């Protein structure tokens, strides 16, 4: 087992033909250590789904490379679980059949009890057909299928979108238990930061097809500061992510270089503040491991 779950280097994906081509992902470099629970956050259409599909070996990159569990996404297939955004399942199969299919298609590493438990948590009749299930129930079966595979890396695209708060909490608990017990690396995307804040320890913020922030959430938060200073204060040499002047005060979110002046009231931003500041300011310099010299200076 390698200590790196996903490593991307200048990863790029373009859709469409020349002329009308659009870059879904561009110059994307980051490293996700194994055993982390990573939130992939960004607005709709930012490239989150494309990134997950690339890591799952569902689509080939236009440029750059992505390494999954130390090998190519294709070679890692048997060790990676994937839950697509629309939770595709065969509508004509029953829940029990769907799980049996999972067993048949994942020889050697199928955990029937784990899959069964996830389904049982939703009080679902195993004989029920997939086509008769609600969106939330389908999500539960899709998660059961992915967890039954007992993956080393679990990729999930907006996994919680269709779930009611109760099921969301319960299934997130199931996922966290999986991570605690088996050291599974979990990557889940969402455009709602709050829903991932307590469960994730790693962040990948994507905006307009590029990585804006990547790293441990604690370190990212500690690496930024909210400051409130008199207007016309010179904020350099600190990197200003966002600043707003109201009256005689300027409030800003900065990446401190060295120590901040003591008389500027500060504080550590919340994850949501941090994410929103970066998304509101596309011009703000990205912070990824490749560019973290400034951060460690």
């Amino acid at each position, binding site marked *: 087992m390698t200590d790196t779950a996903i*490593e991307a280097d200048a990863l790029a994906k373009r859709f469409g033909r020349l002329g009308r081509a659009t870059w879904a992902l561009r110059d994307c470099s980051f490293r996700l250590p194994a055993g982390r629970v990573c939130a992939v956050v960004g607005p709709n259409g930012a490239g989150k789904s494309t990134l997950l599909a690339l890591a799952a070996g569902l689509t080939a990159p236009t440029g750059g490379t*992505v390494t999954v569990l130390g*090998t190519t996404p294709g070679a890692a297939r048997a060790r990676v*679980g*994937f839950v697509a955004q629309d939770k595709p399942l065969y509508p004509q*199969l029953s829940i029990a059949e769907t799980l049996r299919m999972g067993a048949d*298609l994942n020889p*050697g590493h199928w*955990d029937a009890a784990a899959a069964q438990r996830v389904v049982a948590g939703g009080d679902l009749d195993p004989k029920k057909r997939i086509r008769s299930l609600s969106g939330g129930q389908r999500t539960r079966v899709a998660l059961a299928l992915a967890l039954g595979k007992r993956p080393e890396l679990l990729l999930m695209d907006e996994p919680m979108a269709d779930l009611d708060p109760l099921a969301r909490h319960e299934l997130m608990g199931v996922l966290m238990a999986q991570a605690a017990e088996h050291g599974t690396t979990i990557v889940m995307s969402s455009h709602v930061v709050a829903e991932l804040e307590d469960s994730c320890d790693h962040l990948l913020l994507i905006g307009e097809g590029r990585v804006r922030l990547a790293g441990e959430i604690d370190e990212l938060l500690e690496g930024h500061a909210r400051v409130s200073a008199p207007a016309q204060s010179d904020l350099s040499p600190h990197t200003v992510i966002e600043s707003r002047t109201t009256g005689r005060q300027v409030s800003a979110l900065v990446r401190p270089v060295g120590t901040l002046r003591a008389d500027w009231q500060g504080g550590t931003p919340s994850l949501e503040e941090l994410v929103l500041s970066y998304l509101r300011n596309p011009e703000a310099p990205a912070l990824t491991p490749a560019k973290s010299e400034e951060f460690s200076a």
Partner: protein
Amino acid sequence: MSAALTAPTRVHLTRWVVRLHRPALYLWTALILALAAALLWLAGPLADAAAEAWQRYNACADMGPCAYDQDAILRYKDYYEYATYAVLAVPFLVAAWSGASLIGREVENGTARLAWTQGLSPVRWLATKLALPALLVTVGTGALVALHRHAWVAGDGRIDTAKSWSDFATFYASGPVVVALALTGLVAGALIGLRRASSFGALGGGLCVTAFLWFGIHLLIPHLWSTVTKVTPMAHNVGPSGNGISVTQGVITATGARIADAHCTADTTAQCQAYYADLDAVSWFNDYHPAAHYWPLQWIATGILLAVTALLTVVTFRGLRRRTTTPEGAAV
């Protein structure tokens, strides 16, 4: 691994391909059985009744009333036609199903992605998805073609209105060409199903490719085997002779030159004679394929279609591989 892992040690995809396409399997079996029964009925009781009616008709003198079962003759003729067109429709049915249901719907609904993220490669998935239907299509269509041939043989020489072997509907419905076309349809449907994200588009695309290839092979067939030439002297005044698939017809002049397609369309024999005299024609010629060429033509055309199918298969697999995996050597 712990004892909780109770999975089989091999990937069992075949049973799930069968399970997921069970309605199609039932429908296909029912279709083959029904058509086979109809063809057996045609070759047996229907052909016998029509043959007997013809025998009675031919025994009748030119004059006076003639008692024969005209309905039996017409029934054989009609049912033969229906059965022939039913067999000819099979490749289209297969292409439509393959494009729309076997592959297209999986791509459209995202279930293909579900399958590709299990413990088997997309290429393996496609191979299984194509191999099983290919086997069933070959066996089913092959049986239909053999039975159609059987029904044709039953009428040949006994029923005066029976279709000639060179009637194109008969030619295709009772030979291996249609089996090859069904396989082409299967692969064409899959190819387009994987390329287009809509199952409806894949259905239409599969149909179009199949029709296009059929048309192409139809244009090619007369040229796949060297023809036999039959020369008939003008004096016989019957036009070109020789029964089979004709390639070129025309007249030969006194100098030995061949003029193709020199047809006389005039109203009277005298005018025609003048037309031929004008050309200085001494005989008619007919380059054609006699009945003996039936099997060579069938097998060569079948071979070409199978080669095209193999090519389409390679394109399909390479496309899927390129789409889903990082090229070898590109990854660290």
